């Protein structure tokens, strides 16, 4: 049994009330106005930074009150051409999708980063959000996108000796043979 010392919220007792204050008006001046952006169906703002500025864009949000990296995933756009992207953003095969969440402003921002197939390497967010650790490992495992600066970039869900990255679109779905019918080839 350890000492039961209270760990206070940085905002003090005001933050501890259950009847939370109404959401503040979103800041009028958008962060980093030079980054291409669109609005999403779910009300979140979507940013499309260049790969070189990805880490900087996330860091700017981290310091502007986006305390949490809610989710990080990727999409393989191998067989889905012509998706809607703002002008100036060149589509690449992979897209990394990071969902940032601001608890104070009750706002979400989604960052969609184009990652080319020939060089699937992205800066890790681990130094900004420690919660990125498992999520980046999952993306690495499933898509083969490597993260520089990640402390422990190993497969997380698949066995270590697995070949290939299962969520890539060119990775076939396995079939199991059943009686009187051998396993057909992947779809």
């Amino acid at each position, binding site marked *: 049994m350890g000492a039961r010392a209270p760990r206070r919220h940085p905002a003090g007792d005001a933050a501890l009330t259950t009847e939370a204050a109404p959401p503040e008006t979103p800041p009028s001046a958008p962060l980093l106005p030079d980054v291409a952006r669109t609005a999403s169906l779910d009300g979140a703002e979507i940013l499309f930074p260049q790969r070189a500025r990805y880490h900087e864009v996330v860091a700017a949000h981290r310091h502007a009150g986006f305390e949490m990296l809610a989710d990080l995933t990727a999409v393989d756009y191998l067989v889905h051409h012509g998706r809607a992207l703002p002008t100036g953003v060149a589509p690449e095969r992979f897209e990394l999708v990071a969902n940032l969440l601001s608890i104070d402003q009750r706002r979400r921002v989604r960052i969609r980063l184009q990652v080319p197939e020939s060089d699937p390497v992205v800066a890790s967010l681990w130094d900004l959000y*420690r919660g990125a650790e*498992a999520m980046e490992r999952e993306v690495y495992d499933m898509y083969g996108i490597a993260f520089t600066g990640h402390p422990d970039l190993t497969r997380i869900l698949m066995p270590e000796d697995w070949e290939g990255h299962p969520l890539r679109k060119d990775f076939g779905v396995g079939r199991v043979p059943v009686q009187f019918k051998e396993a057909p080839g992947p779809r």
Partner: protein
Amino acid sequence: MTPDIRSALPSETSEGTQELAQRQDTAPAELEREVGAVLRIPEGAVLDASDLDVEHPDDETMIINMGPQHPSTHGVLRLMMELDGETVLRTKPIIGYLHTGMEKTGEELTFQQGSTNVTRMDYLSPLTNELVFSLATEKLLGIELPPRAVWIRMLLAELQRMSSHLMWLATNGMDVGSTTMMIFGFRERELVLAFFEKTTGVRMNHNFIRPGGTAADLPDGWEDDVEVILDNVSVRLGDYDELLTGQPIFRERMEGVGSLSAEEALALSATGPILRSTGIPWDLRRTMPYLAYDQVEFDVIIGTYGDNFDRYAIRLNEIRESIRILEQVLDNMPPGDYRVQDKKVTPPPRARIDESMEALIHHFKIFTEGFKVPEGEVYVAVESPRGELGCYLVSDGSSKPYRMHIRAPSFVNLQSLPVMMHGGLVADAVATISSVDPVMGEVDR
């Protein structure tokens, strides 16, 4: 001469790099986690990595393995812990033993079939998974649900939260040595599951909440059934209080154990009862309302210390809040349709199929091809009993999701386990694992 048995044994049992490595083989950045340095890096005050090895030389610590078949790890969770005597220094959860590629499967199934897939992820709250998938699909479709469908979903989601928390109370009681609590928790959960069986036909993996509404209306007399559940559970919550909350042994084992600060919880992306136990009033039902949660009254339960006892108290009291919500749902359930009357999404009623050829064709088309969903991408999150359950859906305009990603709260919450366990006793590890409430089906997907 007896043969040396050692030569027959594999000399190296290590599976490799996913395991917890010895100190000298570990990156300094990863070692920093041991000192609870979750927050140091953003400020730029990097810990001097050479200091780390001084305190615990390798020959004084021991790396032990726990799981994946350990009964108290709630499924196939495997933990490797570095111990100094009885004190836990480093912990590494090793997961993937239940990985079945459900996100890949989701890309092979139509939107119509998708809820049968996601419901199997978090098997302790299947309806919540169906809910988030359906909400995401409906957002892409741009359809508005009739009020009764919304309220039925809310009724089921809250009953699900109740059954999930009751199950947690049961297993947590078991983990700290109270067999009585296990029997109690399962007994009350059974009431809820019986209602689910009556409503949806099955106890788990319901596939009841579907894009466009629910599969069926509530059964006749559902109000009485729900009232019986609420009356029983609210009385028995008092029993739990008597059995556990005030009991000195239980409190000794829970208070001050596995504590986490608010900054750490945020940095580690922890949500749900773990985040709330640190004092941050973040509950998506209140802060980013979905369904009709902005029309019902309830409190967001938060803790102060971020320890195991706070997480216990939060879950116990969230059942009380669920009862409050359910009472309001009973009073305010609107009449009307339980699914949207959009011919694109909803199959025709069974009776129409017998008399109309068009209805038969329509029914056939929906169940063979599914309905097409406009191109786009969307992220929708709901508050599952374990935290923020998100669904990221990408559609390319066909009837199957191009990408279906589930942001599983247990998967992300597991990352806070090493921080909670650091400096604690190995005997408390079981209680701490339990307080994270991981569901391995959801962790591994």
